[in-house]
């Protein structure tokens, strides 16, 4: 909880820094604040409690996910220092980033539908602006516009679902809703027996709304376009921090709030999962831009997360946590490389990666490790994440779905290897890598290796 105060405080500080001309301090305060907030999460680890009259609930799962969000944001802020530096809007961009992180923590720790709604909106409205922050570029404007339209459309569905569930149970509180079995209002058409039917319609509408947010197929059409069009640092932010927040909100709603209906919901989740795995992986094969390929790969990872979640509900939180940590570490590493290549050559098509092994060994090795981890090759973190997901699904008896997931991950290996092959061939020009980026690459490589070799260090829940 204290972490949330710190994050909001830095967001407001960044806004005020514009007035008091403290702009050059923002990045230091931001990094320090993110590290301090992560430390506060560790300090809170033993105190599990409700806040604001039961509106928010920080249990181990919520604490672990907020910790992950803060650590990922720390490395992300380090990675995208160029995005903030030397820009007249540094204060606005930084404060919006911190409001996104605050919204993400609210989405992780909510215990009331109002907090869920506010968290999603705080996160989304800031991201609409950030996605369009490259005002000279039409693609960036277009991405932000598309994200805005799809985002508010999805919010409409989510809210209608919340309203129907409220009508059936008389509460916005997760605990009350999950324990409710008797109708609170009765009339001629609704009937007086059992839960009214619109409760289930509300549940489905909430699933549609949240499926938009986690970008599961068939609600994914916005995702590749937005990730591709937005400025590269913002894309990586959306692919990591926002995905963690959205998926943990998804888990909390459907495994905690509606746990009674898990057997029915399971079929829907598996339907989403099959579509996501097949469509996203097949679409990624055809991409020529590495950034867009990673956007599709980000969509396909949701399929693996849904496989873990649909097979074991609330117990899958630990596996989902590990998978998201591994995926975020690999994505941040890949996007650091894309940022370096993009700032030197202008775009991120596969051709721009030619000959990188000869000209820039460190950058090429970093990209190779990131892609190996995303493809799930041992001993990297991504392999262990996929291994945990598959064993969880198999131990619950979903053999066919696991086989399907293994096949699609083999398709994944094919498209992840395309930039890798390009890097080994031909001659490339030497890219300029700043000292800070060099250290960041080394640290992220170490994290990817460590998480794969000693997976227990991140298996806290």
């Amino acid at each position, binding site marked *: 909880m204290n972490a949330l105060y710190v994050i909001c405080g830095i967001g407001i500080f960044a806004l005020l820094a514009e007035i008091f001309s403290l702009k050059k301090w923002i990045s230091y305060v931001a990094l320090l604040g993110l590290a301090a907030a992560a430390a506060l999460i560790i300090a809170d680890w033993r105190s599990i409690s409700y806040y604001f009259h039961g509106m928010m609930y920080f249990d181990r799962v919520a604490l672990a996910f907020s910790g992950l969000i803060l650590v990922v944001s720390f490395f992300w802020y380090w990675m995208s220092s160029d995005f903030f530096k030397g820009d007249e809007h540094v204060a606005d961009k930084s404060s919006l980033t911190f409001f996104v992180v605050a919204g993400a923590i609210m989405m992780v720790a909510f215990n009331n539908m*109002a907090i869920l709604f506010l968290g999603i909106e705080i996160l989304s409205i800031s991201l609409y602006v950030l996605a369009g922050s490259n005002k000279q570029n039409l693609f960036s404007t277009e*991405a932000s516009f598309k994200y*805005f339209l799809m985002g*508010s459309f999805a919010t409409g569905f989510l809210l*209608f679902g919340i309203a129907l569930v*409220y009508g059936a149970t008389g509460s916005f509180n997760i605990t009350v809703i999950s324990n409710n079995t008797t109708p609170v209002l009765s009339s001629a058409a609704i009937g007086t027996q059992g839960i009214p039917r619109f409760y289930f319609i509300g549940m489905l509408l909430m699933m549609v709304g949240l499926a938009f947010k986690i970008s599961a197929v068939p609600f994914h059409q916005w995702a590749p376009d937005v990730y591709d069009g937005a400025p590269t640092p913002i894309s990586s932010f959306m692919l990591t921090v926002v995905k963690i927040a959205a998926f943990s909100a998804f888990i909390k709603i459907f495994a905690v709030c509606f746990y009674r209906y898990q057997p029915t919901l399971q079929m829907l989740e598996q339907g989403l999962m099959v579509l996501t795995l097949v469509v996203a992986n097949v679409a990624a094969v055809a991409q020529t831009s590495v950034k867009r390929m990673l956007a599709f790969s980000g969509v396909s990872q949701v399929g693996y997360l849904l496989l873990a979640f649909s097979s074991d509900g609330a117990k899958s939180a630990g596996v989902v946590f590990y998978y998201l940590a591994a995926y975020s570490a690999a994505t941040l590493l890949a996007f650091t490389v894309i940022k370096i290549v993009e700032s030197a050559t202008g775009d991120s098509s596969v051709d721009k990666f030619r000959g990188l092994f000869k000209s820039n060994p460190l950058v090429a090795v970093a990209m190779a490790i990131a892609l190996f981890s995303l493809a799930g090759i041992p001993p990297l973190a991504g392999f262990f994440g996929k291994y945990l997901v598959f064993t969880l699904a198999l131990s619950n008896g979903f053999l066919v779905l696991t086989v399907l997931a293994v096949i699609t991950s083999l398709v994944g290996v094919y498209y992840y290897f395309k930039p890798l092959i390009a890097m080994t061939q031909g001659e490339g020009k030497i890219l300029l890598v700043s000292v800070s980026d060099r250290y960041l690459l080394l640290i992220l490589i170490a994290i990817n290796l460590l998480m794969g070799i000693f997976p227990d260090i991140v298996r806290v829940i």
Partner: protein
Amino acid sequence: MIPIDNYIWLSTVLFSIGVLGVLYRRNAIIIFACIELMLNAVNLLMVSFSNTLNDSRGQVFVFFIMAVAAAEVAVGLAILVMMYRKTKSVDIDILNRLKG
């Protein structure tokens, strides 16, 4: 007193009109209006449930929805103006540049 069922049907119809509008109209401003219609259908439903259940929480939620919807439209219109300055159009068919 009008039974709650009629309110549920009315707000479902309003919500559906909003959804169909978002899916079928091409003008970005009309789409904004349709999204607002969706949110207002939710508001109507919340208020009528709140009244039937004798519970004030639903009405408090409506205030949150109103405030957030206002913020959302402010940002959305700003993005739309940015878009219009570049393309001189508010038709969403020009959004196909990123496809493929």
